[in-house]
């Protein structure tokens, strides 16, 4: 935007008024062009994200509804996603968290699948220094893997901890709503693989779609609405404990397992082993991943 203006200004330079010296005029012209360029480039309102959203002009806005009463915690979405998107070992684009509450006979176990919320106002997009994270007009937030430098700022900016460093691609990576499938008219693979049909995907601006009908007629909730990110993954039957459990420190997980396990009659050793094996497995998966990557780099093959 800046350059054409400057060109025009300098083209006008020979017609400088006689009162000004050539040097003075060029200086003034240059400054004006720079100033105008700066203002257009960095529109203050746009800069701060204060511009009003024109939702009327949009035809398509993808979103997802997850009915937590239908989720049985089988993790098939997580596995299907890993297969479809080639997600490296030790990382997930979507996962399912278990929340247990109460004790026999008054007890319950709930599951909450987590994935990228494809926010209308994504913080990851705002904080990306090279504009590698972008939002398509249909609302899907994507990473441009050729631009991404891997500064990891988006990973700490995301209030949902969705992003991760992909050790093979060496960039940030995240859920794409299976954009390659969506563009061909298919549903994301987590939706297709869901055995309880808990995940429903569609265009929320089309009043005929199932997603739009649910959002319009049933009590839905989003994760962390206070972050003002306008998430577009809506949860049906989301209850307080699901949210409250988000704030639990995982380091105390061992403690929880112990309490539960003791009631079940398990020994301390068994319990800690279960926990540690799980933890070590995750860590060794990651170490293996990076080792594999280095080997490929060195030898050129697996």
């Amino acid at each position, binding site marked *: 935007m800046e350059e054409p203006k400057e060109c025009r200004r300098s083209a006008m330079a020979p017609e400088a008024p006689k009162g000004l010296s050539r040097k003075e005029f060029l200086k003034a012209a240059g400054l004006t062009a720079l100033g105008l360029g700066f203002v257009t*480039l*960095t529109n203050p309102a746009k*800069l*701060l994200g204060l511009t009003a959203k024109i939702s009327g002009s949009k035809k398509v806005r993808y979103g997802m509804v997850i009915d937590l009463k239908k989720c049985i915690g089988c*993790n098939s979405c*997580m596995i299907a996603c890993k297969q479809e998107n080639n997600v490296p070992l*030790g990382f*997930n684009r979507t*996962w*399912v*968290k*278990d*929340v*247990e*509450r*109460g004790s026999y006979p008054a007890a319950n176990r709930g599951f909450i699948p*987590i994935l990228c919320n494809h926010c209308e106002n994504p*913080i990851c997009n*705002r*904080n*990306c*220094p*090279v*504009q*590698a994270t972008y939002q398509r007009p249909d609302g899907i937030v994507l990473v441009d893997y050729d*631009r*991404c*430098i*891997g*500064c*990891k*700022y988006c*990973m*700490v*900016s*995301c*209030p*949902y*901890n*969705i992003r*991760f*460093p992909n050790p093979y691609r060496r*960039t*940030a990576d995240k859920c794409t709503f299976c954009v390659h499938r969506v563009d061909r008219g298919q549903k994301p693979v987590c939706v297709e693989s869901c055995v309880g049909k808990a995940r429903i995907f569609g265009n929320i601006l089309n009043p005929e779609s199932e997603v739009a009908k649910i959002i319009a007629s049933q009590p839905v909730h989003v*994760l962390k609405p206070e*972050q003002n990110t306008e998430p577009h993954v809506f949860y049906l039957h989301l209850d307080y*404990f699901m949210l*409250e*459990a*988000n*704030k*639990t*420190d*995982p*380091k*105390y*997980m061992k403690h*929880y397992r112990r309490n539960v396990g003791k009631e079940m009659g398990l020994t301390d050793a068994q319990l800690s082993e279960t926990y540690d094996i799980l933890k070590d497995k*995750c*860590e060794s998966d990651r170490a293996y991943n990076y080792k594999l990557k280095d080997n490929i780099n060195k030898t050129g093959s697996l």
Partner: protein
Amino acid sequence: MDELARVFYNAPHEIYLEKNIAFYFYLTGVSAASFIISTLAYVFGVERFKAVGRIGAVVAPLVLTVAPIFLIIDLLQPMRFVHLFYMFNFRSPVTWGTILLTLYPINCLVYLFFIYKDNKAKIKTFGSIGIPLAIAVHGYTGFILALAKGIALWNTPLMPVYFLISAMVSGTALLIILTVIKEKVFANNALVNRFFPKVETEVIWELGKLLAIFIAIDLFVAFSDVMLLFYSTPENQIAANLLLAGPFKNMFLIMEVALGMVLPFIVLLVPRLNRNTAVLTVMSVLVLIGIWGMRYVTVVAGQYVPLM
């Protein structure tokens, strides 16, 4: 909620920004503070600080040339750092950093050049330009953390202030140590003495007083920060618990607060001890270690609790 609900994660959680980033924050802080102290003499005309100001003027660009290296090696693809120079996003504090980290060292070098040439007018000009730049080059790192708004420990308006004041503390401490080393070890070295004139012992004591003032403000800001964490949302309370009772309690309470701030502050108030160069040096070392603790705790403790 401990008794009512238990959560089981089947997804591992990772801490993304670690020592490299904390050390980068540490270095920019030291650089900015050294520059500001050097302008005390060359811009604000406090003549007795001139000798110390020269050391500050050398430390500032030196440290700031090293600092971005830690940022670059922390990238997943270090060679792509060039993208930062032609792909801008003016809403991202990292882009502000690209601009500031380019302008500030250049300004520092020009400032140092004119100190070497002893050109008073030019020193004053570039010194004056440098003060806001120095504040910005460290203040923006506070915004990097503060604008990651999902993280309770970081997302506070106090963060840039906390960063700036701890920068002043660490910068002053480093200058005291360097001045003492110069006076004790290189007192008769002709090469050193050609550029760095003798620093009076009284000036070192005065730097000690300055350090005490900065520590007092830093203590106040740290106290306000933790105090507000306690009386805010549940996430904030968890963050406060991490610092005061959780895995970071030793680093925060002992390394940063007790040894890094309270002890040096008390010692610097004792009339005889604050005129003892050896004691001052030891306290400065403690302060430097303490501020490293602050940087590390702030960066790592923020990411410690999984957000989802």
